[in-house]
């Protein structure tokens, strides 16, 4: 028996980030005290589901959870990728939760990945699948990922609480490693695109959302197109809801996004996680449009080449670059972004030089990548 030394960690925070970095850096981890003092201790369904997903896409990985689920042992394997995989994400978190780490892992796999995910496509907590398609995937191209084979298809939508959405994600592998970037030119917003969707409700909800969002942008930019995606029948999933995803494209090829979704929460749920939201709609469609549009303008005002949601991913990709200097500009550091920076330092020992740019209120980050190579590709 070979004794494996585990890196010890505590708490349930940033679980997927830890698992992701653990896999990329081949560091076995041991997480203790996972919600040990909570009334419902242990791992949540989405966290278990994410572990199952890791098992599915990698070879020789080892997961051990103790009886109460408060302790987790993870020994990463080799990311294999593969085609025609299927994974059920469950209903406790939206697909965005799974997609964020998954795309990074898939890049460093042995074979290109194509996977069908089932579950919640849009909710208010995680980036929606629309945002993924419009913002996250173009972002990968900046790092030299080929756009061929990089795709996300929405087969059907599903909102909480019952989900029922289906997507197909395809991610190519990087041949050798990513490309270091200097990405500080934010450019100017040249167009705004967006999509509104509705499932199991009247199409009128979409039109109202669309009009109120347009009303905000009209004084700034004429090039605003928001598409509607009204789903009915089996394509609409199992729960009623509506939402919107907006993306601003700049002259230098940056994509800034904002999204939100409205749905009825389950009123009686033993999960204890959901708040009592009653039976009526949380936000009426006019407000949803205005709020999402305002959020987008807020992100634009803040500056940076990505929005605050994508900061973490941006830092991570920079850190995974070859041993070359990457330089990026972001707006205010988001709490999640800071967490990512800390974990990158712990796992990959890449430390960023962070410098504020007072004239614009943005932050410039520089780092030398850890030089991660796609090793799984070479194993045959």
């Amino acid at each position, binding site marked *: 028996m070979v004794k494996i030394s585990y890196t010890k960690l505590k708490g349930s*925070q940033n679980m997927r980030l830890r698992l992701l970095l653990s896999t990329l850096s081949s560091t076995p981890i041991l997480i203790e005290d996972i919600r040990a003092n*909570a009334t419902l201790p242990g791992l949540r369904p989405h966290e278990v589901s994410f572990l199952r997903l890791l098992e599915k896409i990698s070879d020789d990985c080892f997961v051990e959870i103790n009886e109460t689920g408060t302790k987790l042992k993870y020994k990463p394997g080799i990311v294999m990728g593969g085609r025609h995989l299927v994974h059920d994400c469950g209903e406790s978190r939206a697909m965005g939760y799974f997609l964020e780490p998954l795309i990074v892992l898939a890049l460093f796999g042995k074979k290109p990945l194509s996977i069908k995910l089932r579950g919640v496509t849009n909710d208010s*907590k995680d*980036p929606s699948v629309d945002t993924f398609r419009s913002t996250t995937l173009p972002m990968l191209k900046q790092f030299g990922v080929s756009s061929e084979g990089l795709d996300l298809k929405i087969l059907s939508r599903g909102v909480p609480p019952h989900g029922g959405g289906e997507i197909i994600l395809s991610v190519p592998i990087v041949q050798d490693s990513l490309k270091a970037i200097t990405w500080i030119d*934010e450019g100017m*917003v040249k167009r705004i695109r967006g999509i509104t969707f509705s499932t199991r409700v009247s199409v009128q909800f979409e039109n109202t959302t669309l009009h109120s969002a347009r009303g905000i942008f009209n004084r700034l930019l004429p090039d605003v197109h928001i598409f509607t995606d009204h789903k009915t029948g089996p394509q609409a999933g199992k729960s009623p809801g509506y939402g919107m995803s907006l993306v601003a494209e700049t002259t230098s090829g940056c994509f800034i996004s904002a999204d939100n979704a409205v749905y009825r929460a389950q009123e009686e749920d033993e999960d204890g996680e959901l708040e009592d939201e009653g039976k009526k709609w949380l936000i009426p469609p006019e407000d949803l449009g205005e709020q999402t549009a305002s*959020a987008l303008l807020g992100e634009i005002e803040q500056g940076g080449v990505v929005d605050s949601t994508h900061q973490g991913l941006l830092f991570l990709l920079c850190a995974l670059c070859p041993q070359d200097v990457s330089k990026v500009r972001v707006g205010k*550091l988001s*709490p999640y972004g800071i967490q990512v920076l800390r974990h990158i330092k712990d796992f990959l020992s890449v430390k960023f030089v962070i410098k504020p740019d007072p004239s614009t209120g943005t932050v410039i980050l520089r780092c030398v990548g850890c030089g991660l190579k796609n090793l799984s590709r070479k194993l045959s």
Partner: protein
Amino acid sequence: LAERASLRQNINLMQLVYGKPASKSLNETLDCIDEEESEDDEFFKPKGEGNKKSKEGTDVNDVDIDDCSKFLNTATKKNWKSEDLIASIRNRFVTGDWSKASLRNQFSE
């Protein structure tokens, strides 16, 4: 003097990210943790959800913090219908003043 000020801010930001979270003063980038309050809470810490609810969302030091990359900033609460605000970001759009916008990218090392 301006150079020194920017240098200090720089260190603060590095400290903010990499330094020990307990022993630092927070600057404007992260206005969330109320030090005194959290110390009081530490003393009478009920084992349960009650305490967590009040701390949830903003506390970065919570080991069981929700794993969520989406950050809802306060900008949503601003009234983007007002002319002043619209004018303030006018130059970030192609419809604004291009020469002023290009100034943003002249970043001094």
